[in-house]
C-alpha cells in the first residue's frame, strides 16, 4: 500500500510523492511528518519519539551544512546533543536497522549520505 503512495513518476496525484530508485525524495520540499511516516512504513518501521529525535537532528544538520552526515559523524552528533547512551552505533542500529545513516536520512527526507558505502 505504502509503495503505491510513493510513486516513481511525475504523478500529480495528491499523495504522489516522487522518489528515486532507492526511495529517497526527489524534491526535498515534499517532506512532511506524514511523508516521513509513509517512508518509514515502506521500510517496515513505526516511528517512535526516539526515531523522531534522530530525524530532527538530521534535518537540523542538513539545514546548516546541506549535506547528510556519514554514520560516524551522525553518531558523534547524537552523542553531543542527546548524550553518550544514544550516541552509539548500536543504539542507532536498533532504531534504524541495517544502515542507520542512510535509512534515517531517507526518512528525514534528505539525500543519501554521499560518503556512505
Amino acid at each position, binding site marked *: 500500500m505504502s509503495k503505491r503512495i510513493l510513486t516513481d513518476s511525475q504523478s500529480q496525484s495528491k499523495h504522489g510523492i516522487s522518489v528515486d530508485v532507492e526511495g529517497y525524495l526527489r524534491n526535498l520540499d515534499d517532506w512532511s511528518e506524514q511523508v516521513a511516516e509513509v517512508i518509514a512504513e515502506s521500510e517496515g518501521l513505526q516511528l517512535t519519539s526516539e526515531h523522531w529525535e534522530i530525524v530532527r537532528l538530521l534535518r537540523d544538520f542538513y539545514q546548516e*551544512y*546541506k*549535506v547528510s552526515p556519514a*554514520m*560516524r*559523524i551522525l553518531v558523534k552528533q547524537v552523542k553531543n546533543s542527546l548524550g553518550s547512551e544514544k550516541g552509539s552505533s548500536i543504539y542507532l542500529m536498533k532504531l534504524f536497522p541495517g544502515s542507520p545513516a542512510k535509512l534515517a536520512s531517507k526518512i528525514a527526507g534528505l539525500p543519501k549520505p*554521499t560518503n556512505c558505502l
Partner: protein
Amino acid sequence: MTDKKQSILAVLTKPPYGGTTAKEALDAVLTAAAFEVPVSVLFMDDAVFQLLPEQKTEGIEVKCLATTLPVLPMYDVEHIYVDRKALVDRGIDAEQLILSVQPVETDTLRSLFQNHSRILSF
C-alpha cells in the same frame, strides 16, 4: 602534523563553480574523513575562491559549496591550509574566509607535500 604513515593531503586548485572539481574534492575529503583516514586540505591557486563569504548560488542553480565546507571540522578535518601567495595574489584576507584556515608560506607548503603518504589532486 599528521602521521605520514597513513595520511592524505588533498590539494585543491580549482574555483568553486564553473566545473565539478571543487565539489568532487569536498566529497572525497568527506569520504576519507568518514572512514577516519587522516586528511589534510590545502587550498591553492583559484581554489581559495571557494573560501569567499557571501556565495549565493540560487541564480546558477547549483549547491552552494560555501554552505558545506564548514562541515569539515565536524568530520575531524582539522588541518586546513591555504597558500598565502594565492590569497595575496587575489587580494583576499585570511580573516574574512568562511573557514578557519592556516595560511602557509612556500617552505611549509613544500613540506606538506613531503609529510603526507598520499596526495589527491583536484
